[in-house]
């Protein structure tokens, strides 16, 4: 029995001492309310991108945003997501979305009306396993880099 325990311990220490990639994921059940600002198109699928608020670097060299997950929902309104948040790759949680008003799958493609609205929200309260957010798509043809920080 002792030999078995020792063999197990040795095996475990060998294995744990030789991890190549260690991935730590944090599960978040996220409930959102997505709306469009007055005057913008309202019909179409909504493309959502979930970002770290800060992905790489520290201090003045800290780099904002870092996408880790995408999802598309059929229309504006309420949405529920279960995210596996990569803890080693950054901090904070940001949701960015845009409305595919013309249904071409591209955000403000050349030659199309430049009225597809986008928006971004920093999810407050993170880290927590259950969170809510409200996202208003109110800025046409704008990427997340211009909306945050």
């Amino acid at each position, binding site marked *: 029995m002792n030999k078995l325990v020792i063999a197990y311990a040795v095996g475990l220490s060998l294995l744990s001492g030789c*991890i*190549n990639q260690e991935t730590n994921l*944090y599960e978040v059940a996220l409930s959102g309310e997505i709306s469009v600002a007055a005057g913008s198109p309202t019909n179409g699928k909504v493309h959502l991108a979930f970002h770290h608020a800060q992905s790489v670097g520290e201090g003045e060299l800290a780099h904002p945003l870092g996408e880790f997950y995408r999802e598309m929902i059929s229309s504006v309104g309420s949405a529920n997501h279960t995210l596996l948040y990569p803890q080693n790759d950054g901090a904070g949680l940001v949701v960015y979305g845009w409305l595919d008003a013309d249904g071409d799958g591209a955000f403000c493609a050349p030659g199309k009306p430049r009225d597809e609205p986008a928006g971004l929200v920093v999810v407050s309260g993170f880290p927590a396993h259950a969170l809510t957010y409200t996202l208003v798509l109110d800025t046409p043809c704008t990427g997340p880099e211009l909306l945050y920080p």
Partner: protein
Amino acid sequence: MKTNHCICTGLTACAVLLLPSAPTFAADADKPTLDRAVMDALGGAPAKRDYVFSLQGGWAFSALRVQAGLTNRLALVTELESVLLLRNRPMIGVGMRWVDRPRLRITGEALGGWLFQNSEEIRRGPNAELRVRVAVPLRRFVPYAILSTRHALLPDLTTIERASETETSWSFRHEWTPWATIGLGFAITSSIGVDLAINYGWVDAPNTIALPGFHVGLHFGGGR
């Protein structure tokens, strides 16, 4: 007529070199041959009570290897291979002579060990290799070739922190390294030899590109 004579002479020479009449094991020979150390180092599997120590340095692979004969056909093989001190591979295993003739030795080797790579990309895990050596001694010279397949298992750990519990799971990635070496050994004495070879190791094939390399080796042998 002259052409036919040349062909006949060439075929006879090949037959003499490669197809001697009967197999002879090195242990059967009372007197060590001049190429014994370098032949054992490059052809593999020294005979019982023989040993050989090899030091091979080059780009990008270098190696230390010790082989000791356990029986007339089976030998213990230990080696430490390093790529610029960034990727190290200690291994232990056995080598067995499959064909052992005065002008041809074919040896199969099976080794197991651990891979330690501490470069920008960390790679660590159990490692195994199957290797075939072919050596054709020609007086003091020993042309040789090696073909091998190397396999490493790289363990990854994933932890998911849920509201109710924390889940941990292991997964393993496979790294395959096909390998080929072609080289020429030279016996200085029966116990000292050198070699020069070209290596072609394709680490993590087929996801990467293969870079050819080279090594020079020094071999010391003894025993009996």
